[in-house]
Each structure stands twice: as C-alpha cells, then as structure tokens.
C-alpha cells in the first residue's frame, strides 16, 4: 500500500506539471452556464475521462509486462533465465526509463518528443482542438479521454512503472494512483483558473522530478538487489482485492 501512496504523492507533485501542460484544457472547459453543479460535473467528466485512459494504459502496460515475463515471453527466452530474472530485468529497464524522465523534468535531457511527430501529432492537435470547441454534455468526457493520450513525460514514466509490475491489475492500480494524485490540482484548475506563478510551478515540477527519480531508483533496486524480491517493495500481489 505504501507503494501506491508514494505513486499518489508523485502524481500530486507531478500535477504541477499538469497545470502547465493540461491545465489549459481544464481552464478552457471553464464554467458551465447550467450552474455550479453542472460545472463540477463537467470537470468530473473531464477528469474521469483522463483517469480512464490512464488506467487503460496501465492495464495494457501491465499486460505487456506480463507477456514479457511469462516463461514463453520474450525477456525470459532471450536471457534463458527464470520468470524472476525476466521481471528483474524489466524492473531495471523501467527504472532507467523513469530516471531519464526525471532528468527531463530537471531540464537536463531532451529528445523524447522526437518519437512522435508527423501524422500522429497533427491529427492529435486537430482532434483536441475540435473537442475543445465542441458543444454537448459528452464532449468533456471525450476531451478527457483524448487528453489522457497526450504524450507526456509524466505518463510515460508511470507507464514504465506499470510495465515493471508485470501484471494487469497492479498496472491499472499504478496508473490509477497516479491519476488520482493529479485530480485535486486539475479539479481546482477548472474552478479557479491559473493561479500559481510559473516559479512555484517550477518548484513543483522539480518536486515531481524528485519523486520520479526516487521511484526509478527503487524500481532499479527491485531488479538489482538480491534480498528484495521483485514484489518486495511494491506490496502488491493480489491481496489488495
């Protein structure tokens, strides 16, 4: 459970990044002419759309990890090792990815955006723009869902974490914890607009980077240290449900 709490906190700290990147969307959704309740509903719709996408990505990532780590899976077959070895390697890879993302948050590394250019990017842009302008009660959900797929280093980092869990359910939970962490700030954003100064948000982003760095180190540790099993620190294993 501590693990998920850590993820939640990382998500909360990371939402200072969200405010800069996605806060604009929340602001643009603005107030509903139908009153306060309608406004709250609208933002809940938007955020639950986002959360659903995150969970979905987490589920996919976890399943992918599981696929890699089963005895027939790629990682295991390539290394000729046991299931445990496959999961350890996955943890190290995910940890390195997370540290890379964290360095990006400190402005020390760039270059991940080079993966996604061209057709995908422009289509995405046009999609989000037309959803922002679209009328109708359902548009905020759609906006949230599409927004969730916005290429964001924060999401990449947590998706990497989800892969390393090597199972669908913990993958979902990882992303859910992160997504819920971003809820308060993003909900607030919809109501009060852009309040925080860039300086403060910068500190927030550094904080998020620090959390992700820490998580990355823990994840690598899970892979490298012999005394801690792959599930050692994460605390998941099915008994949550």
């Amino acid at each position, binding site marked *: 459970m501590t693990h998920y709490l850590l993820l939640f906190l990382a998500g909360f700290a990371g939402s200072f*990044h969200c405010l*800069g*990147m*996605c806060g*604009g*969307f929340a602001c*643009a959704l603005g107030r509903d002419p139908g009153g306060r309740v309608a406004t709250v509903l609208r933002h809940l719709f938007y955020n*639950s*759309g986002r959360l*659903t*996408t995150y*969970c*979905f990505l987490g*589920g996919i990532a976890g*399943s992918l990890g599981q696929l890699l780590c089963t005895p027939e899976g790629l990682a295991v077959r390539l290394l000729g090792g046991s299931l445990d070895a496959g999961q350890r390697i996955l943890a190290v890879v995910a940890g390195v990815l997370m540290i890379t993302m964290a360095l*990006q948050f400190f*402005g*020390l590394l*760039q270059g*991940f*955006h080079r993966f*996604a*250019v061209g*057709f995908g*990017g*422009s*289509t*995405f*842009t*046009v*999609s*989000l*723009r*037309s*959803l*922002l*302008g*679209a009328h109708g009660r*359902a*548009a905020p*959900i*759609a*906006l*949230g*869902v*599409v927004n969730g797929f*916005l*290429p*964001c*280093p924060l999401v990449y980092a947590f998706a990497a974490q989800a892969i390393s869990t090597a*199972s*669908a*359910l913990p993958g*979902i939970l990882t992303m859910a914890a992160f997504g819920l962490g971003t809820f308060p700030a993003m909900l607030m954003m919809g109501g009060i607009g852009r309040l925080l100064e*860039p300086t403060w*948000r*910068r500190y927030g*982003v550094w904080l998020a980077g620090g959390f992700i760095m820490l998580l990355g180190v823990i994840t690598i540790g899970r892979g490298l240290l012999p005394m801690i099993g792959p599930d050692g620190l994460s605390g998941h294993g*099915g008994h949550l*449900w």
Partner: protein
Amino acid sequence: MTAAADALCSHCLLPIGLRPMRRMVNGESRAFCCYGCCIAYLVKSGSSEEWEAAWLLIRLGVGGFLSMNIMLISLLIYAGAFTGADARLVPWVHLLLWILATPALAVLGGPHLRDAWHNGLQGRLTASTLVVLGVGAAYVYSAISVLAGSLHVYFDTATMVLMFFTLGRYLEAAGRARAARDLGPLLAAESEWATVVEGASQQRLPVREVHAGMLVRVKPGERIPVDGMVLEGESQADEAVITGESRPVSKMIGASVIAGSINIDGSLLIESSGAGNQTRWAQICRSVRDALIRRSPTQRMADRVLAASGPALLGLAIATVFYWYEWWPFDQALLAGLAVLVVACPCAVGLAAPLATSLGIGQLARRGCVVRSPAALEALARVRLLAFDKTGTLTAGKAHLAGIESEGVEDDEVLARAAGLELHSEHGFAGAIAAATAARGLEPVATRNVRIIPGRGIRGAADGQAVAAGSAALMSDLGWPLPPSLAARARVLEASGHSVVYVGWAERVHAVLSLDDAPLPEARSTIEALRRCGLRVALLTGDLAEVAQRIALAVGVDEWEAGLSPEGKRVALDRLRGTNGLAAMTGDGLNDGPVLAGADVGIAVGSATDLARETADLVLPADGLWMLPWVIGVARAVRRTILTNLMWAFGYNLSAVALAALGLLQPVLAAAIMAGSSVLVIVNSLRLERLPVPEPAGGFTAPARQFPVLSPLDRSASAVAVGSSAAIQDA
C-alpha cells in the same frame, strides 16, 4: 524572439532544457519544453477550423470512455479478482458491464447501423453490415447470458471491436482531411475572392466577377487571383503553380503577374488583363477537379472485388460458426464467426487508391503539371517508350544563328552588314541575326534604300556599296559570283538540315550564315534522365531526315523517324510500341493532335489550349520539358504506393480471414489490426506529400553542337517562315 523568451516553454512557461523543441506557429518560431506542450499550444492558438469530424470524435471519446471501463472490469475478471468469497459479485459485475455496454454500442455502432440499414434497403451488403451482424450477435448472446446467469459474457469484445472500427474511421477521416487541406487551394480557384479597388473604396468580389481593366489589391501572402500587370508596389511572387519553378520572381511596376502565383512579401495593385475565370490557373483547377472525380482503373477493380466479397464472407462466417459448434461450446464458435466478420471488413482496400491518386495529382498541379485523370497517371507510370516530336518540343521551334562561313572577311563585319539590312525586315531569320549581332555587341551598319524581295531576301546600300542577304537565287539574280569553296560549304550545311542565308556586298558573295532550330538546352539532360528511368526514347518528326538525325544526335536519342505526316506519326508510334508495352507521345500540342490522342499517354508541353481541348492526358507548363522525369517519378511513386497498399490490404484480409475461420484469431485483436491496417494505408499514402521537388537534372548543360552558339533566342518570338533556300519544315 528574444533569448530570454526562448528560455521558457511557450506553452507552460517553464524553463526549457538544453535542447528545446522548435516549431513555427502562426509564422512565429516558438520553443517548447516537450512535445505534449507543443501540441497543447497548437490546440490553443492554432487557427480554429470547423471540422466535420468533431461529432465523430465525441462519439469516439465517449465510446472510448465506456469501452475502456468495460475492458478494465473485464481485465479484473480475467485476472481472477472475483474468485472465492467475491464470486457472488460476478452476476452484478456482468450486469454493470451490460449497463455500460449498451450506450457504448449505441454511440459507437449507431453510424454503422444506419449505414447497414440504408444499404440493406437497397439490397446491398457492405462492410458495415458485416460489423453490425457480428457485434450484434456478440451483444445479444452476452445479454442472454446475463439473464441466464451464465459465466461468459463478451461485452468487452463487442465494444472494443466497434471502438477500433470507429478509431480506424476517424483516422481515415483525419487523413482525408489532411489531403483535402493540401488540395484545397487547387479546388478553390473559382470560389476565391479578389479585393477590387474602385476609386477610394475597396470591395471583395468573387474571382469570376472580375473583368479586364479592374484594379485588384493583393496583400502579402495572398494568392494573386487574376492575370494582369503591376501598377503599384513591389514584391516577389512564387509562380510554381504555373511555371513549375519555385524560385521567387521579383515583380516591379509594369511587370506582368500570373493568376495562381503567390504574392510573397509586398502589397501589389494589379490591373486585371482578362476575365477571372479564363486564367490558366482557373483552367488548371477545373482540370484537377475533373480528374479527382474520376476513379482509377485499379480502384474500380478493387471496388468490384469488394462488392462481390460481402455475401461470400457472410456465408463464410456463418459456416465457421456452424463448423466450430460441432467441436466447441456455442460462445467460442460465435467468437470465431465474429472474428471472420471483423477481419473481412475491407476498409483498407477501399482506401488504397483514392488518397494516393489525389495526392499525386495535387503534387503535380502545384507545379503547373495537369493530369487529365487518375487512369492517365497510372498509364504514365507503366510507360516504357517515350516518343518526342521535334519542333517546339525538343527544340525551341525558332530559328537561331548557328554559324558563319566567310571568305576573306571578318565574321563581325558580315554580321554587322547583315544586321543593318535585317533591321528593316520582319522575317523570322531577321530576328535571329539581330539577336546574334546584339549578343556580340556589334553596331549594325547603317543601310539605306532597303528593298525586300519576297521569297528571295533583302537588299540595300551602305557606305556607297550595294548590300544583299538572302537565298542563292537572289545572288544569281544580282549576278554576284559565289566562290566555289563557299558554295561547297553551303551545300554541306543544307544537306545537314540547316537553313542558309548568303550575305554579299561590293558585287560579290562574302559569307554564308547558317540558321538552325536549336535543341533546347535542357533537352539532352532530360533525355538522359529519362533513360536512367529505364525508358526507351524515340524522335518522330515531319522534318527532313538530315535535320532529324542531327537533332537526335545532339540530344542523345538513338531511334528516330523523319518525314512523317501527323497520321504517319501515329502509325510509327504504334509500330514502335508493338513490343514495348505502353507508349507516350510528347508534343507541343499544336500540330500533333492525332498522335497525342492515339498514344497511351499524350503529353503536351506548354499548350494552354490543350487544357480545354482535352487532346492531351498530361499538360506540362511552357518550357516545362525538364520536369518530365520528375512527373514520371511522381506517377511511378503513386502507382507503387497504390500497389503496396492493395497488396497489403488484400494480403492482410485474405490471411486474416483464413486464420479467423480456423479459430486462431481473437476478434479484438483482429479489429485492432484492422484499424492499424487502414492507418498503415493512409500513412503510406501520405508519404507522397514528401516527394522531392523537381529540379533540373544537374543544371542545363548546353548540348553538343556543330557550330558555336552565338546567342540564345527569345523563345517568345513568333515562329519562322520560309525565306531561304532551305525551309524549317515543321515549324
């Protein structure tokens, strides 16, 4: 943009790392910390555009929300979250899935259902019908299972299949919209607006209402709507759409401007020289629109296959269900049938050709090359033999001073005296001689008492001596002796197809000027480039054999036939084609109508009238011969794209149907590959946007000639008429 502003992300205002991401937004350079911020910024500040697909997107988003939730819950069930003590929850979870799936099906499946219904009423079975039947069966089966308390429900399969189909549709729409944005300006020529200035007032008028003499104001960045002349202002114009050349051309007061070109950096006031809907630009746009409406032969073939395959696939799906029901439980057999229906959906086949063809036609039109139809574009890609007409196609079509043979006098004196006479003549050769004189910086000798002797030449008096230039007959009329060595050289020149002009003064012939219709400077490099494309090149001309041989040699063509009538050219082309697949004929479009029409692909260079007359399948801009290798490259790229698209689409469909019928393919996986397949076809087609721009092959190298080149001629001068002993026959 200042250095300080550069250090912050334009969107989230956070400091940027060492390597910012740069994009041009609304003409300004912006820096971003990450790709997500770049997209978010584009969304916020990009030009807002109405997009028809917005409603589809909302469907997709809401459907995605519901189906992702269904998927998550189903994942939990598969992961064994509801076992043991929680097993009593399972029926309720199934009910929840049903509740979520019903609106998801309505939202995502609605358009498919409507499409299937409308087509069904007309007795047609489409891809939508297959999807609706398959998904409907899975949904109904699952609903019955919930009521019966069974353990197996397939709401996730039903919604995810629809989800992927809708996603495929959406990406398809996005790809089309992108291609349409590219073609937009080409289709909008007549609906464009012009700012007409009348006295102090300005008024926006549709281009078709602009007439000759009206004053039109064009702002920087706008497209020049009419042909005309600059009255005020200074700017640069991009005339690629008419001339194929993308170098900016500077426009000062008095310069003529062409409709369709883009005014780059200065405001211009233009006096229109003709009706707005009669410009070459408007003609190009009309042709492009006509071409886009027609379907290519490949697409017609694909459509026929699709129409026939619907009922067959439905039958196969039903057979699959029945077959597997013998061995498996009913729900498994049903899933196998659903997988067959899903993978059989031939979306990608339908997309294979149209997008690639329109992009190719648009690419060509933007450089002033107009293709009559998609069929012509496909044929051009398959051409193996390319025949050329000579005059006006490989040559300038105008006389050109090729050399001077003199005896006992300086070349410069000959030219100066001849030019003094020819100043008084309108003859085509006169222009050639005057141009050569000017190129050498010579002053024509002042000549008086000039008299033109029709059909023979011209005579006068300079420095108190009689001077004459013209045919051998003129010289013998005058009784001036022709030195035997000069006569011999003149005979050699005439035999090789040159026109000769004798120049004499002081009672004697002193020199022979040879005139020639010279090959275009770009002809040789163009033909070499075509050869490198693997094409056989031939020359078909109505001219004398000697001329044909000399030009063929000069431009590097090794097959030629001379002395052909227009009809004879057509026969010769048929003969050459015999063993060589498709044949194309390139002419100037003026006097080779029959052969252009008779060829598999008729190519006209520079003839605007042909756009209207429809004699040619492809019209290149004036002076656009050098673009031919590029045009063939584009045609081949389009054909390659269509073929790879079709191969992928058919190949995928066939192998996936086989796998599905064998029960080896999950329906959701099948739908995902299906959507991916459409996207792959679109992305493959959109690659055509990035074809290289045409460039003259290695610069124009002057072709090898027998005589030194004296001066290039202004190609806009009118054609030459017969005036000397040898004629330029097919001018």
